[in-house]
């Protein structure tokens, strides 16, 4: 816990200890990769703009958020006003482990070995079985949220997932990890008794999870 990188991770995570700041973070996170202004965050917090800005800037300093500027009205030139300061999730990931553990390194080795031996199907099968182990459910969004996804409805028939719980690993082993993810979501739907209503499929696109869920 003493390298500069460790300390940055610790600062980043520790900055979320304040409950108001955590809610500010969650408000920005709920926009997926989208940018959010101070006013929206202030409204979500039920607080003033100054307090919202204070917490947002702390989150930027901790490396959890990034700043961009834009004229939100689309107006330009004189009279358009100052560009608004907007916040979005930063690219980086932060994990703190006490004592130090390297599970990601282990996951990378396991993934590489699975690919080399062509054992993808075994992984998909395990993922499907683990996904399907839960109790019956009626709300698909709740089910997905509980498992680390960030579901967002696109109309009544389709749900996209704004978060990939396996992001770094999926970037390194896309077919393997996205296939595992699909099997897992498929298992979740089956295990919760929602498979008659919803179906998961591979539907890769930039900036979101490779799986989408559609009404049958």
């Amino acid at each position: 816990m003493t390298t500069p990188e460790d300390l940055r991770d610790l600062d980043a995570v520790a900055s979320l200890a304040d409950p108001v700041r955590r809610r500010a973070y969650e408000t920005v996170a709920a926009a997926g990769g989208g940018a959010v202004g101070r006013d929206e965050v202030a409204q979500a917090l039920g607080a003033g703009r100054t307090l919202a800005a204070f917490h947002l800037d702390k989150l930027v300093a901790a490396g959890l958020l990034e700043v961009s500027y834009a004229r939100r009205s689309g107006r330009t030139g004189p009279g358009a006003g100052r560009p608004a300061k907007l916040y979005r999730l930063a690219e980086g990931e932060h994990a703190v482990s006490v004592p130090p553990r390297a599970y990601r390194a282990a996951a990378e080795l396991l993934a590489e070995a699975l690919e080399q031996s062509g054992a993808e199907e075994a992984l998909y099968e395990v993922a499907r079985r683990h996904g399907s182990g839960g109790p019956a459910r009626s709300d698909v969004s709740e089910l997905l949220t509980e498992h680390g996804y960030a579901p967002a409805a696109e109309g009544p028939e389709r749900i996209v997932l704004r978060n990939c719980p396996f992001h770094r690993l999926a970037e390194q082993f896309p077919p393997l990890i996205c296939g595992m993810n699909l099997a897992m979501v498929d298992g979740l739907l089956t295990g919760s008794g929602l498979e008659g209503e919803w179906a998961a499929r591979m539907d890769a696109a930039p900036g979101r999870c490779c799986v989408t869920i559609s009404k049958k």
Partner: protein
Amino acid sequence: MDAFHLAQINSARLRAPLTDPSMAEFVEGLTLMNQLADRSPGFVWRLEGENGDGTIARPDDPSRIYTLSVWETPEHLRAYAYQSEHLDYLRRRREWFHPNGTEAALVLWWIPAGTIPTMRQGISRLGRLRAGGPTPDAFTFRQMFPAPEPAAR
């Protein structure tokens, strides 16, 4: 325009000849994925091959096929390969291809923009990656190297 483009060669060993019924969905996908590649942002060139389906079979081992293509940047190739419908075909690759074992199946390298690679060059780059691991001359998505600096004028 960038001075260098990204070349890629990809190799796979078929479980059955392309005419076998078990390969029908793969063959169907080839046409669709070639069309998708051709209209993808940053696509520069691909070797169409004698069959016109973009798969080039090794003369001494027809079960060994290759694809060879050029893209403006690694991000363009990544978007096509992993952030499009193509990903689902990759996910299903064991239905159609044998595992590669420890042999690298995909290699990337930089070529001067406006030039195209040959099969011989591609296979030689695969050989370099297999022999010496990733280097600036033969690398992978997991271990990238930046494009060479344009030569001074």
